[in-house]
């Protein structure tokens, strides 16, 4: 609460209610001035009409004369009109007494009541031909009533507007402050090290909920990357430390062991093979890192996917046949994508390497490229032993070599690279059951659907 007046929400709400109050005030004053002007005009009109009526009646009615006429009118009750006829010396000839002789023309003056009290009047004083002054006035009751009723009413309304504005500013700023404070506290907790904390979502779907959801997605993504990194560093430690220790043991044995040059030569050749294996692991890791970093390092051009898939499918034909796999491929023609040729070629090669490496002899391997309106679907499938459902999603994780394939060569990065390449092209990679066997499916957005 003490922080409220400095909050943006409070300032905004305060500014808004101030503006609203100003407009209300201006409107009130305008209405007051307009009504007052109109009432005064009405009053003046009545006075002018009455004066003319009196003068014309006096002219037509020569016998009685003006003083008698005025006396008669003044005596007539019920009217709020007031009359006075004053001689040039200032003495009242007829009508009601006045406090003082008013100036000629319009004025706000006072008549006197019989009790001696002042009676405020709006009046017009006219000098007649004989030097007498005729004063015709009227009670400005309506105008007074306006001041009496409208002004307090308006003041009350204005006060209410200001009160609502101030209260609104406080409510708004404290409500916004609470929501923001939730996000703030979550961020503080994460900074403090509680990486699994997420922003609470109220569920009413407002902009704060959307913000919270976006922030949570961002945090999940970062969390995923962190987790990935942690796993990779662990895996690197394992996958490089093991071959390195073996290499060291071999070389040590070769040094202390038989001095036979043939044996030594063999040991060195073996060592070179092992180093090459590790280098290829490194290349694969770098390739994934490069693809995932994306940006300028992955140059995309318009690429005829049908032709490329066909080329690589044909390239693998002899290898598959030599290893007793039956092989067929079918490609829809004319599919183009925005892509990087080298990466797509590598992705396709990895899929086929994988199909060849993890299936026994005699299985059928198939490559199918299908054109959908928005995307191209590339499937590499086999009818081999398949992968248990619980392990399926993990094949795209780095360094995953499922049980039973630990003994086969490979660094376990092939399918991770497939997934990374598909993602870098705005597509996706998935693994499905081929009943029996495995169907690896890559979907890539087409550039001319």
């Amino acid at each position, binding site marked *: 609460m003490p922080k409220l007046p400095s909050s943006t929400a409070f300032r905004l709400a305060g500014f808004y209610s101030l503006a609203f109050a100003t407009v209300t005030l201006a409107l009130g004053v305008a209405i007051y001035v307009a009504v007052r002007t109109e009432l005064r005009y009405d009053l003046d009109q009545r006075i002018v009409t009455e004066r003319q009526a009196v003068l014309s009646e006096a002219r037509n009615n020569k016998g009685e004369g003006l003083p008698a006429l005025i006396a008669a009118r003044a005596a007539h009750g019920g009217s709020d009109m007031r009359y006075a006829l004053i001689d040039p010396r200032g003495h009242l000839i007829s009508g009601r007494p006045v406090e003082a002789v008013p100036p000629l023309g319009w004025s706000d003056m006072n008549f006197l009541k019989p009790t001696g009290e002042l009676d405020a009047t709006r009046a017009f004083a006219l000098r007649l031909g004989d030097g007498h002054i005729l004063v015709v006035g009227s009670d400005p009751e309506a105008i007074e009533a306006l001041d009496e009723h409208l002004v307090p009413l308006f003041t009350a309304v204005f006060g209410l507007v200001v009160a609502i504005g101030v209260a609104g500013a406080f409510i708004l700023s404290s409500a916004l402050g609470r929501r923001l404070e939730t996000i703030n506290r979550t961020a503080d907790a994460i900074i403090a090290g509680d990486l699994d904390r997420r922003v609470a979502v109220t569920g009413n779907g407002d902009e704060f909920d959307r913000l919270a959801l976006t922030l949570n997605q961002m945090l999940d993504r970062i969390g995923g990357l962190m987790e990935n990194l942690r796993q990779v560093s662990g895996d690197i430690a394992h996958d490089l430390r093991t071959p390195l220790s073996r290499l060291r043991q071999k070389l040590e044995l070769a040094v202390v062991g038989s001095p036979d040059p043939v044996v030594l030569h063999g040991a060195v050749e073996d060592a070179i093979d092992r180093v090459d294996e590790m280098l290829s692991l490194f*290349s694969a890791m770098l390739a994934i890192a490069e693809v995932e970093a994306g940006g300028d*390092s992955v140059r995309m051009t318009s690429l005829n996917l049908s032709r490329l898939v066909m080329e690589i499918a044909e*390239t693998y034909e002899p290898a598959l046949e030599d290893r007793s796999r039956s092989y067929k491929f079918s490609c829809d023609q004319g599919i183009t994508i925005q892509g990087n040729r080298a990466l797509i*070629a*590598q992705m396709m*090669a990895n899929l*086929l*390497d994988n199909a060849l490496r993890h299936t026994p002899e005699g299985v059928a391997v198939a490559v199918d490229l299908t054109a959908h309106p928005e995307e191209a679907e590339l499937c590499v499938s086999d009818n081999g032993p398949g992968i248990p459902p619980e392990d399926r999603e993990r094949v795209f994780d780095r360094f995953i070599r499922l049980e039973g394939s630990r003994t086969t*060569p490979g660094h376990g990065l*092939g399918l991770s690279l497939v997934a990374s390449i598909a993602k870098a092209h705005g597509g996706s990679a998935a693994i499905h059951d081929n009943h029996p066997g495995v169907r690896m499916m890559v979907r890539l957005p087409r550039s001319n659907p």
Partner: protein
Amino acid sequence: MKLLVAEDDGETRDYIDRGLRELGHSVTTAENGRDALFLAMDEGFDAMILDRMLPGIDGMSVLRSLRAADNATPVLMLTALARVEDRVGGLEAGADDYLVKPFAFTELTARLNAIVRRPQPRQVETALRVGDLEMDLLRREVRRGGRKVDVQQREFALLEQLMRNPGRVVTRTMLLERVWNFHFDPRTNIVETHMSRLRSKLNADGERDLIQTVRGAGYLIDDIA
């Protein structure tokens, strides 16, 4: 051959220097870009091995200056950068070939041989010949002792790479790059399987195999029995 090796890392430089000397080449070394450029401009070399990252003037600038001065010495560029984009950049700057570190020495010599013997652009070859094996580059036909051999497009490209370098090793990596445009190493032995098909087609009548497998390096084609 008279060769220039420009490489800043001492161990790598000695490794290349020693290996090339053992093969009977005369080798001059440079450890920075300035020396490399000076030597390359001043003396005529049969080929130059140029590291992409050199202190002072880097390898790319050395290469550009060399080509700008109309020096056509064949250049094999060495680099630790494996991306295709980097390779393209090196070739565009005027390198004749591009080799990613670490490399096997056989790979280096095979590529060096290939760029040195590369035919000059003026002499357009229309036919290649090794022993009784003939290749017509215009009609894209292969004949063995007059008999027409029916080869597929990839097999033709594979054989062409070997026949353009008779008697010299062409490595697996070179074949992957030039025939398939693969700049990575697939785990399936596609070169071997294609080569074996090509051989069986060429030797279908029981002829002597002209293609030799060089263990750990690649293949070479030769007429010597």
